């Protein structure tokens, strides 16, 4: 059971990555409109059926995998970098700088995350870059709070005092002496952050605020399929199952990492 809980998500995530990497090599036609094949059911002609414009669902699913992986990685990279910089700076600087930054973090935490992301993406206009910016604007606070707490407790350690006495610069102290020790909870946070970003991207695209047609995203596929649910449920089911499998795998991975790295974090 324990093995299954590790290997199943890793296998599924591997499949996700392979799908993304292999997609450019495959003869996909995600945007090819096929009028006679409109709403075709899954079968031999089209493995997962066609959508309302006769476009193959499988091909669009694979392209959508790229969208969600790209956004997920982009959001986690951007928000963790920003969060660790702000949190680390606050903890090292202390005094009024720390106090002011903590206030800023508090203000961002006061917004329900997805709400602010929806408003930002809606106001900045659709597009994948804006989705990443909107989600990172919301996501960095979690890392900042975590990094600050970690570094506050670590900076009292002897090896940091020694490095300071030797005249090391703050940037070097953060990079060499503090971050490696503060890494474990940040990695766990980043894993759950990845799951959150995949759901959020799909959610924004579902609302029409993410990728724009004809590009495919799992979220926009669900949105487009809702109107045909009674005649062609596969349009909604296929991308939904893809999202659930990926998010479930990432969450399982996060659980496993948390146990293995022995990190105590809340579910918040």
């Amino acid at each position: 059971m324990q093995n299954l809980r590790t290997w199943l998500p890793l296998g599924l995530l591997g499949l996700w990555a392979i799908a993304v990497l292999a997609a450019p090599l495959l003869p996909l036609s995600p945007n090819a409109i096929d009028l006679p094949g409109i709403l075709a059911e899954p079968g031999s002609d089209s493995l997962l059926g066609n959508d309302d414009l006769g476009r193959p669902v499988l091909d669009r699913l694979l392209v959508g995998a790229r969208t969600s992986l790209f956004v997920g990685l982009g959001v986690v990279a951007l928000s963790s970098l920003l969060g660790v910089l702000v949190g680390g700076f606050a903890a090292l600087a202390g005094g009024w700088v720390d106090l002011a930054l903590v206030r800023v973090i508090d203000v961002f935490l006061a917004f329900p995350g997805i709400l602010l992301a929806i408003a930002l993406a809606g106001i900045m206009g659709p597009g994948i870059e804006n989705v990443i910016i909107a989600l990172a604007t919301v996501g960095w606070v979690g890392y900042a709070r975590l990094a600050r707490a970690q570094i506050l407790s670590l900076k009292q350690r002897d090896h940091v005092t020694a490095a300071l006495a030797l005249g090391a610069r703050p940037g070097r102290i953060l990079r060499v002496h503090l971050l490696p020790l503060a890494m474990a909870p940040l990695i766990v946070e980043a894993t759950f952050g990845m799951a959150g970003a995949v759901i959020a991207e799909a959610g924004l695209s579902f609302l029409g605020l993410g990728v724009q047609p004809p590009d495919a995203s799992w979220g926009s596929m669900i949105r487009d399929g809702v109107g045909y649910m009674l005649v062609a449920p596969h349009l909604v089911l296929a991308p939904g199952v893809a999202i659930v499998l990926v998010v479930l795998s990432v969450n399982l991975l996060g659980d496993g990492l948390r146990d293995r790295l022995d990190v105590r974090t809340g579910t918040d």
Partner: protein
Amino acid sequence: MFDAFAARIGSAVLVVLGVCTLVFLLIHLVPGDPVEAMLGESARPADRAAMRQALGLDRPLSEQYLTYLGRLVRLDLGQSFHYQQPVRVLLAERIPPTLELTAAALALALLLAVPLGVMAARHRGDALDSGAMSFSLLGISVPNFWLGPVLILVFSLWLGWTPVSGRDGALSLVLPALTLGTALAAVLARMVRSSVLEVLGEDYVRTARAKGLSEAAVLWRHALRNAWLPVLTLVGLQLGGLLGGAVITETVFAWPGVGSLLVEAIQSRDYPVVQACVLLISLAYVLVNTLTDLAYAWVDPRIRAG
């Protein structure tokens, strides 16, 4: 104790001011000219000038900000140009449905999570436990914009038990509340389980068992009562997720609440309404969290003293 309360309220006031400031800045993130985005490129210059003046965008930023704060204090949220109504009137219509939906989702989440979590803790390590926790993991991983359509497909289209969308009677509330409440139920079930497990290890539980109380009495009367506090705190924290999730859930079910108003306003580029919706939902979240903290301090003497 008064100091702790004052400090908590003071920090809440600062946060509220920060939230208002961020929401004020939102409109300045519109790429290009917000007035052109709202009216379209073909609008007459006179109309644009009128709109710019109505929104105060022709003034210096600092003056705009002060005017904005001054109007907020008077609960003047501006005018929706799309609906041709004061934003305050629009919001007043949309608040009750959102309250109804979130309250129902919260109640449903607790109703699902408490028995599930207690059962999992009671049968720790059994099939029941892993079953409940698998359900919880699944619940966290299923996005509401997919769960909603799937529930509609099964219960409205196939079985015909519930309306597809809209707000018409108690039956129309069932699917939206289930859609919104499932993720919260999943998170809460985990918390209830770990909280009950922790309490079950306490001395007074051993005492209760030693004096011959039935397991059910130990569980419900002693363990659960003390396991409540962390669960309630989590409810306060997760309320943000619930309010945010309501935006998507309301859109899925065409539920006429603040969330669907926000999405409509984004689509029609009705920026004053966008700002007001974000402000309202966030301030509600801050308010509930502050009240949770204060109530927590009130209930638990250890915190009250600290």
